[in-house]
């Protein structure tokens, strides 16, 4: 067993040498996660805005379900998607199991409730401030959702970031539906799990470093944007 520092140094060498395997894994991770977060935002932002800005029968139940789904265990989601996509499942004919698309589906299911529930909170707070003015202007339903989402855009970036954090760090669901197949469905988290169990700590740690760096960079970018928005009183 090599020393910790030895492994760390080899891991950095892998990162800095732009190792092709590493690049492929990071690229697939980002592709899957960003696509899932993108789809989750397309569904979750308007859904959260509608629940946050309108009063309708069953609104409390919808909010409760969204909040409950925020804590969905990834392995359970993975299992459900597996059952749907497996050869004997209702969507088996699509042949999506063990493909990046299956991973995107699983992550979208995990992230959408997070985006929707957090959006609901942000939009609800903003609408409390805008309600009288909107009622006075006679703002229609579509305009209301659009305006609230636009005016809350900087807070919603943090919401998307929370979704990104959940998706990029998730391992259980993508492992089950992706199968961790080399060069096909191997992403950062599944590789870290596999390589650690194989004892290939250099690659595992190198991916860990990339994952951490990505998290810091994305968070930093969002914080910087928010800070500039706060200065202009847009946030």
């Amino acid at each position, binding site marked *: 067993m090599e020393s910790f520092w030895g492994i760390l140094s080899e891991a950095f060498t892998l990162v800095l040498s732009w190792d092709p395997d590493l690049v492929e894994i990071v690229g697939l991770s980002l592709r899957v996660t960003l696509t899932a977060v993108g789809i989750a935002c397309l569904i979750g932002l308007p859904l959260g805005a509608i629940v946050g800005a309108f009063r309708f029968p069953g609104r409390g139940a919808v909010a409760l379900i969204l909040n409950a789904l925020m804590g969905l265990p990834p392995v359970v989601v993975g299992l459900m998607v597996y059952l749907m996509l497996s050869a004997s499942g209702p969507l088996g004919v699509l042949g999506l199991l063990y493909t990046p698309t299956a991973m995107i589906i699983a992550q979208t299911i995990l992230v959408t409730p997070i985006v929707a529930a957090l959006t609901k909170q942000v939009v609800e707070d903003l609408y409390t*401030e*805008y309600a*009288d*003015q909107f*009622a*006075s*202007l*006679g*703002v*229609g339903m579509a*305009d209301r959702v659009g*305006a609230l989402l*636009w*005016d*809350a855009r900087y807070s919603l970036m943090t919401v998307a970031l929370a979704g990104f954090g959940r998706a990029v760090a998730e391992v259980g669901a993508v492992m089950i539906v992706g199968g961790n197949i080399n060069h096909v469905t191997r992403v950062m988290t599944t590789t870290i799990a596999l390589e650690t169990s194989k004892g290939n700590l250099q690659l595992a740690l190198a991916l860990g470093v990339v994952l951490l760096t990505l998290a810091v960079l994305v968070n930093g970018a969002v914080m910087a944007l928010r800070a500039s928005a706060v200065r*202009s*009183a*847009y*946030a």
Partner: protein
Amino acid sequence: MRDLASEFTPLGPAITANDVRQPLIETRGLCFEDRGQRLLDGVDLKLREGRLTVVLGANGAGKSLLLRMMHGLLSPTAGEVLWQGRPLDRAARRAQAMVFQRPVMLRRSVRANLRFALSVRGVMGRERARREAEALELARLNDLADRPARVLSGGEQQRLAIARALACAPELLFLDEPTASLDPGSTQAIEDLIRTAQSAGVTIVMITHDAGQARRLGQDAVFLHGGRIAETGPAARVLEAPRAPAAQAWREGRLYLEPPGAEPLRKII
């Protein structure tokens, strides 16, 4: 029914017996209750086109509530609001605008705030650009057009809120204490804006706590006390020689507490 126009003879436009114009807006027996407490009680009021009416009264008298109900933001517990003789509907509400005591500024630029209001009203293209420019000019905010609206000073924000409301070309503008806690310079700028709007034919109903402002701007006055109309009439008369005890106390700066078991004020007058 308090018909403000019928009391105008000395100061306001003479409304003759032949004048068949119906009031622009009218309230009939307007009541509002919240958690068993009656906050507005049997308010009958008729306001005619083109006038500037000041709504006076102590805190909690029901002034904001009355405006909100006339604007359709709140539904009365009893009674009704009529717009040109018809129930207040969506079209009627679109002919009105309201500016709140704390102006609501969207998290956008000054120009985008105007643009949003116009877009909501279906004003697009060149017409929208023209009205945007006009509103910026009116509010003297040309130099600040691209600044975020929420970093403007209190007075500038209120000017923008009024200009935004006027850009929608309302027939009736409600103003809820538009100059509360503003310095004299900002107050004057807003009063100029209000005068300009009125001279352009907009009917204005404005809440104010400032007797001087009521004298400067008001043509008609409504004095509310305890959720009821205590007095109405030409502003100069209500302000200089009020008949209702509550209005007299307000004018003299005295604290007024209704004597126990007193008759409802509107019956005294």
